C-alpha cells in the first residue's frame, strides 16, 4: 500500500482557520469595547471570565491529547500507533495556547480586580476566616509559580515525547534498538503522567477554576474537569481522524480504530456523568449551606437551562447515540457526536466559570462562542502546521504492525 507521507494544508483548511481566528479576535475586541474597558468592575469581570473560560478549556483539551499519547505509551498499547501523529500534532498547540492562557490568568490575578478571584483581595482575606485558612494555597505567589511551572512542564515534556516519536521516521530499527526506544518512551511518558496527575487531576482545576468560588470546595472537581476535557480531547482526535480519512490520508487507520475512539468518547462521557452526579448528589443530600451555594445559581437560578442542557448533550446524547456498535464505526455519527461533545463540554465550562462573577444573569453567550471559534481556528492552524511537517504514518514505530492488524 502506498502511503501519502505528509499532510498538505488545503486552501480551504487554512482559510477556515484564518476566518475563525479573525472571528475570535473580533469577538475579543468587541467584548473589550463593550465590557472590558468599562468603569464597572462587574462589567470588566465579564470580559475576563470569557477569556478565562475559553483559554483554560482549550488548553486542557489540547493537553488531553498528550495525556492520551502517554497513557497508550505507558500501557504499551500499539493500537493507536497508526494515527498517533494526530494527538501529537494537537498537543503541539499547548505552548501557544498555554502562553495565552497563562497571560490571561496572571492578568486576572494581578489586574487589580477581585470579581473573579476574590482571594486576590488581600485586605478582604484578612477578615475572611475561610479564605485566610486557605491562603497558604490560594495566594498570588503560589498561583503564579505553579501556573508558570505547569504550562512550562506540559510544554517541555510534550515536546520531548513528540520528538521521540519523530525520531522513528529515519528508518527501521532493530529489536534491541526498538526495545530501548520503547523504554525511553515509557520513562518520559511516566514523567508526563506524574506532572499531569499533580496538575490537571488535582491542583490546576482548584487554582484556575474552583477558586472562582473561593469559599466553596469539592473533592470531585478536578476529576470532573479532567473527564470533561479528556472526552473533548478524544472527540477532537476523532474529528481529525475522520477529516484526514476523508482526504485520503491515514491509509492504515480504519473503522477498527474509529470504533475504539468511539468507545473512549462513550465511556468517558459516562464517566463524566458519574462525577457530575457524585458531586451533585452528595451536596444535595447533606444540604450544607456552604456547599449548596455553588449549585444555587446553577440549579435554582438563572443558569438552570445551561446546567441541565449540558447534562443532556454530554450524557444522554453520547449514551443513546453512541451505544450501538454500528454508530461507533460510522464516520457520520462519530463526527456529529464529536462536535456535540466538544460543544457540550465547552458549555459545561461556561456554567463552571460564569456564575462566579455574574451570579444573577447569564451573560450573552454569542461573545463566548466567538472567542471559542477563535481558539478552534488557532488549534486548526497549529495542528495543521505540525501535521504538514512530519510523516503522518509512523511506519517504523516498533508497535506499528500491532496497529495495522488491530481489530476490536
Amino acid at each position: 500500500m502506498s502511503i501519502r507521507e505528509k499532510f498538505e494544508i488545503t486552501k480551504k483548511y487554512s482559510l477556515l482557520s484564518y476566518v475563525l481566528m479573525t472571528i475570535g479576535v473580533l469577538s475579543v475586541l468587541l467584548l473589550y469595547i463593550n465590557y472590558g474597558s468599562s468603569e464597572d468592575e462587574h462589567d470588566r469581570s465579564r470580559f475576563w471570565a470569557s477569556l478565562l473560560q475559553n483559554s483554560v478549556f482549550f488548553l486542557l483539551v489540547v493537553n488531553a491529547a498528550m495525556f492520551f499519547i502517554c497513557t497508550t505509551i505507558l500501557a504499551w498499547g500499539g493500537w493507536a500507533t497508526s494515527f498517533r501523529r494526530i494527538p501529537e500534532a494537537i498537543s503541539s498547540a499547548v505552548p501557544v495556547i498555554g502562553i495565552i492562557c497563562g497571560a490571561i490568568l496572571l492578568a486576572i490575578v494581578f489586574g487589580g480586580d477581585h470579581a473573579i478571584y476574590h482571594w486576590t483581595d488581600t485586605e478582604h482575606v484578612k477578615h475572611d476566616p475561610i479564605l485566610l485558612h486557605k491562603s497558604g494555597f490560594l495566594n498570588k505567589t503560589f498561583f503564579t509559580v505553579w501556573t508558570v511551572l505547569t504550562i512550562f512542564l506540559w510544554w517541555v515534556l510534550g515536546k520531548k515525547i513528540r520528538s521521540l516519536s519523530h525520531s522513528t521516521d529515519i528508518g527501521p530499527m532493530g529489536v534491541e534498538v526498538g526495545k530501548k526506544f520503547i523504554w525511553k518512551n515509557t520513562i518520559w511518558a511516566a514523567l508526563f503522567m506524574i506532572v499531569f496527575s499533580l496538575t490537571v487531576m488535582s491542583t490546576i482545576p482548584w487554582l484556575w477554576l474552583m477558586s472562582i468560588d473561593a469559599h466553596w470546595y469539592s473533592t470531585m472537581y478536578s476529576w470532573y474537569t479532567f473527564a470533561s476535557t479528556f472526552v473533548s480531547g478524544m472527540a477532537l482526535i476523532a474529528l481529525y481522524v475522520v477529516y484526514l480519512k476523508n482526504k485520503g490520508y491515514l491509509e492504515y487507520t480504519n473503522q477498527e480504530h474509529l470504533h475504539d475512539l468511539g468507545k473512549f468518547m462513550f465511556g468517558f462521557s459516562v464517566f463524566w456523568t458519574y462525577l457530575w452526579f457524585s458531586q451533585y448528589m452528595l451536596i444535595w443530600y447533606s444540604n450544607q449551606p456552604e456547599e449548596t451555594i455553588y449549585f444555587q445559581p446553577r440549579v435554582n437560578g438563572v443558569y438552570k437551562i445551561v446546567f441541565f442542557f449540558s447534562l443532556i448533550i454530554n450524557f444522554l446524547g453520547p449514551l443513546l447515540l453512541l451505544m450501538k456498535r454500528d454508530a461507533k464505526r460510522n464516520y457520520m455519527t462519530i463526527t456529529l457526536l464529536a462536535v456535540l461533545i466538544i460543544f457540550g463540554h465547552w458549555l459545561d465550562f461556561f456554567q463552571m466559570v460564569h456564575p462566579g462573577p455574574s451570579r444573577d444573569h447569564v451573560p450573552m453567550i454569542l461573545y463566548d462562542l466567538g472567542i471559542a471559534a477563535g481558539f478552534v481556528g488557532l488549534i486548526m492552524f497549529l495542528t495543521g502546521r505540525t501535521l504538514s511537517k512530519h510523516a503522518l504514518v509512523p511506519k517504523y514505530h516498533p508497535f506499528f504492525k500491532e496497529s495495522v492488524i488491530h481489530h476490536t
Partner: protein
Amino acid sequence: MAVKKFIVGSFDDEAVLFPAVKQVRKSGYKIHDVFTPFPIHGLDKVMGLRDTSIHTAGFIYGITGTATALGFITWVATKDWPLNIGGKPFFSLPAWIPIIFELTVLFSAVGMVLTFCYLCQMAPFVKKDHFNLRSTDDLFVMALECTEKTNEKEAVAFLQNVGATDVVVDYKETEWWLGRYDKEIKIFEKGKQ
C-alpha cells in the same frame, strides 16, 4: 425431537479450517455449525453469521430495570409508605439514582446471561449431542447438514478434499433434551435405520 443427518468433518488445524469453510460455503453445502476448542476471531464472518442481537436484548433488559426501580421506589416512597427523611421531598430523584443504576445493571447483566444460556441451549440438566467430543479439546469440527438433495459420498469426498482429517456420517439430535446420555442414547440410534 428432530434427529437429522449430518456429515461431520474434523480438522486439526485452524489454518486449514478457514479456507475449508470458505470453499464449503461456496459450493453450496449447508453448514450446520463449526465447533472449536477456543474462540476464533473472524470465523463468524467467514461462516457468514449475522451479528448477535444480544446487545439489543441487553438494552431492553436495562430499560426494564430502570423502569422497575423507578416505578417501585416512586410507589413506595410517595404512595405506599411516605417517610420524611431529613426534610427531603418524598419524590427525591437524586437519592434514587444509585439504586436505579444498580437495577439497570443487574437486569441487563442477568438478563443477558440467561438469554445467552438459552440461545446456546445451556442449563442445568440439559443435554446436547456432541458431534465429536474432541471439539472441546484439540479438534475443529464442522458439521454439514444433509438435505434430500445432498449426495453423501460426494460431500464426504469434498470434505476430505478440503483438508478434513476425519469425516463421518452421523445422526444427531439438534435440539436439547432433559435426561441422561446413556438412557436417551436410543433416540438417535433410531434415526440410523
